């Protein structure tokens, strides 16, 4: 049990460090944000209008307390989920902007990741079990070839062929006219909009899992416990699944949990190509527009996502591999 307790403690400590750094880094940057904003709006060469700067300060709010008090109130705001107002979508609060994008990404990328993982692991395991067969050669060579391509480039191709030339799928956005919610027309529209981006991700993401699983499993197949399982006269399916695949899966599980953690960051390039209203596109926008509050919130969210995923991976690993529990416990 100490294994799990320690992992959780480690998670809390890292989370605190991330939150604090997220507070400190912007404050360590030189310059007055209000002045910078005014300068940017007025143009580089224009003289600084003090009145405008004052107005901007009033709008952004000027910190007057000591750094310590600022930190305390920052933590307070954070707990209440207040990240400030977005510059780009002014006067909407950052949380609202993110909330709109959140589900689009989570649904699209999570489904793509889960399918990629399951498909990749199954294909990889089967290729390893039948290694040097035709199936194995096709899968391995195919993966190596496709693995060199980038999802956004495949996205562009898909967009051109199925969206533009054939017109089977819409080319941008998340839905058309339907009212968002649990109604049939909306779900239909959402699915047809998400299909191409998901496909772009599904062509490339499984490759890592396929090759990783295949290699680990081939290595595992040489182990003595596999030979012993065969000598025990167990059916092939049991040897392949309970002995070989079960052990070969371990390294992939950690990778998968981390990949899920990255979901919150969205798939920036793919979402941008398809103009998909998710977190990835939002992140791209925030960077382009220098929308600091939005960017800061997104960063915090993705880091926390990765941390959480890491925690889940550690805990899961402890369940799946009893050796990990003892090695550290």
């Amino acid at each position, binding site marked *: 049990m100490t294994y799990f307790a320690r992992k959780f403690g480690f998670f809390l400590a890292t989370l605190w460090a991330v939150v604090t750094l997220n507070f400190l880094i912007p404050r360590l940057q030189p310059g007055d944000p209000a002045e910078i904003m005014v300068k940017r709006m007025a143009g580089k060469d224009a003289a600084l209008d003090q009145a405008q700067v004052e107005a901007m300060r009033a709008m952004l709010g000027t910190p007057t307390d000591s750094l310590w008090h600022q930190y305390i109130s920052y933590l307070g705001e954070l707990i209440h989920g207040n990240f400030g107002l977005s510059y780009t979508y002014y006067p909407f609060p950052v949380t609202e902007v993110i909330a709109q994008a959140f589900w689009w990404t989570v649904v699209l990328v999570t489904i793509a990741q889960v399918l990629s993982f399951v498909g990749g692991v199954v294909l990889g395991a089967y290729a390893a079990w039948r290694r040097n067969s035709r199936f194995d050669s096709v899968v391995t060579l195919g993966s190596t070839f496709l693995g060199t391509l980038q999802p956004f480039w495949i996205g562009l191709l898909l967009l051109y062929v199925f969206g533009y030339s054939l017109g089977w799928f819409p080319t941008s956005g998340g839905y058309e006219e339907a009212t968002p919610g649990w109604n049939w027309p909306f779900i239909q529209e959402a699915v047809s909009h998400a299909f191409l981006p998901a496909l772009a991700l599904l062509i490339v993401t499984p490759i890592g899992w396929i090759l990783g699983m295949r290699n680990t499993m081939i290595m595992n197949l040489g182990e003595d*416990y596999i030979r012993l399982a065969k000598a025990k*006269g167990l059916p092939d399916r049991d040897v392949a699944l309970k002995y070989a695949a079960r052990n070969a899966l371990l390294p992939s599980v950690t990778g998968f949990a981390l990949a899920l953690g990255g979901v919150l960051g969205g798939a920036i390039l793919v979402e941008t190509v398809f103009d998909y209203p998710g977190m990835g596109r939002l992140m791209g926008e925030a960077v382009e527009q220098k929308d600091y509050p939005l960017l800061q919130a997104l960063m915090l969210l993705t880091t926390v996502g990765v941390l959480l995923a890491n925690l889940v991976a550690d805990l899961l690993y402890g369940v799946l591999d009893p*050796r990990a529990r003892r090695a550290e416990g």
Partner: protein
Amino acid sequence: MTLLDVRDLSVRYEPKASRPLDAVQGVTFSIEPGEFVGLIGESGSGKTTLGTALLRLLQRPGRISGGSIEFNGTDITSLPEDELRSLRWRDLSTVFQSSMNSLNPVVRVEAQFRDAIEQHSSLRGEAVTRRIRELFDMVIIDPKFMSAFPHELSGGMRQRVNLALALALDPKFILLDEPTTGLDVVVQHSILENVRRLQAEQGFAVLFISHDIGTVLDLSDRILVMYAGRIVEDQTAGALLRRPLHPYTKGLLGSYGDPREETVKITYVPGRPPDLSREMTGCSFAPRCPERIERCLETDPPLLPLLGGRAACHVAHLQHEEGGAGPHGEPKRGFEGPQFVKTADESRSALANEVVLSVENVSKVFERRRGFTVTRTEAVSDVSFELRRGEVTALVGQSGSGKSTLAKMITGVETPTEGRIVFHGPDGDKLVSGFKGRALRDYRSNVQMVFQDPYSSINPAKRLGYVLSRPLVNYQGLKGEELRERVKELLERVALTPAERFINRYGYELSGGQRQRVIIAKALAVEPEIIVADEPISSLDVSIRAEILELLNDLVKENDVGILYITHDLLSARMLSDEVIVLNNGKVVEKGPTLGVIRDPKDDYTRTLLDAIPNPF
């Protein structure tokens, strides 16, 4: 009826990248129900391949290329996997060589018994648990370990669990492939006792594969001797010991001696086994054989019945036909090859030499900090002894006895917690502790290590000339012609001659014994005062161990170095060392001249170690 009948079995490996190789060549033998048969041979003789073939577990690029295996009346040579499966484990089970790895690491031990039992019997649920408990009792393990994961068991326990697993379905035949290699002598001994008792009680047949002829003689009814892919001798254990027929068997027997004798002689087989991927004419053992005659180089001797057994040797058959009175003389009992002799007298004089290292009341405590708790383990406690020039002190004990920790302190890797180690070097006395940087380097030019595993201690990407030149360049700043001369000299010193032939070769091209010679040459390069040799022969084949012992012995005599010889094997300690220190749980339990300790052990632990030496004589 014969249980296992193997006829003319051949196994061929056909790797894509290199020449095909016949690892097993036309092997014929049979095993009766309840018979305990030993199969001995050195590494690369094809014994494990033969065992794997019997279980039909060969993996590509290996395959059965000829002959047949009949088990209990069924030909299993080409039986389809589906039909074979019902035979597996119920009739034929096995304990593998590295049983450390033969349990699935992520599944509880109980489940690994359960799947095999449920696959082949009608037992379910509680009945299976009862059976597993029964099996644990058989191998003397507390049944509470049923719910453990494999890593929670010690090496010895894992091997017992594997044995229990092999017995799960009352098989008719069990293949034991070096089941105790890598385990401690004492543990090894108790597991083999257990095997013998169970075999007597339950009457299953065993094929016991091992490289250790002592253990095989101890346990088996009958012994098959394998060399270069063939069986060269087949006799009952008693007859084989009394009257070995094949010179190779004589060589293996010659590698044992009685450590209690005043003068111990052990022989070794010079040279190395043939490359099986090359065509050869005549007897495959002929190049290494002291009894060889003209005919041996021309025709390959078939395995023919002789004196109730079988032997594949022209000389043995001729001698028998001639009745011992013909031109080929009487059959010889011993191996007339090179010999390594150790007398007790040598030790007496060595123990009067000048002291080069003194260890005074040394203790080592390891502290492990975890959060706020500190665990203290005393690895070595209050150990004192002296090492002399031209003398060998053996540090004997099983794993965990603290012998490696002591070696680390002597080589300056660890610092003693209490007590002191003094090196009486050429520059006066020096306290060995906390050496860093230059001081450590200077000290290392006086104290060198030879490790256990010669296979991983030579950089595989470099030629031997380079490997040996490194210490010379680093410590003595030699270069050019001088360096080359010195490298050659080192090679010749460890009998890798002619040096020109070895200087441009790679470590992996050499045999285990040759590699260990290179390691020793490397240690000699800096002309050390002390060599710490950590189990230098335990990974070598029995037939060549004496060769390395002899080399070390010569070094002691010629160069006046002191050797600290770390081992768990009292026989080799007797062969090499003048004084022996027996360690148990970090404490010295017995100390004295080697012969004295072996003849008249005072401590119980020393007695246990002595009993664990397989002694066929």
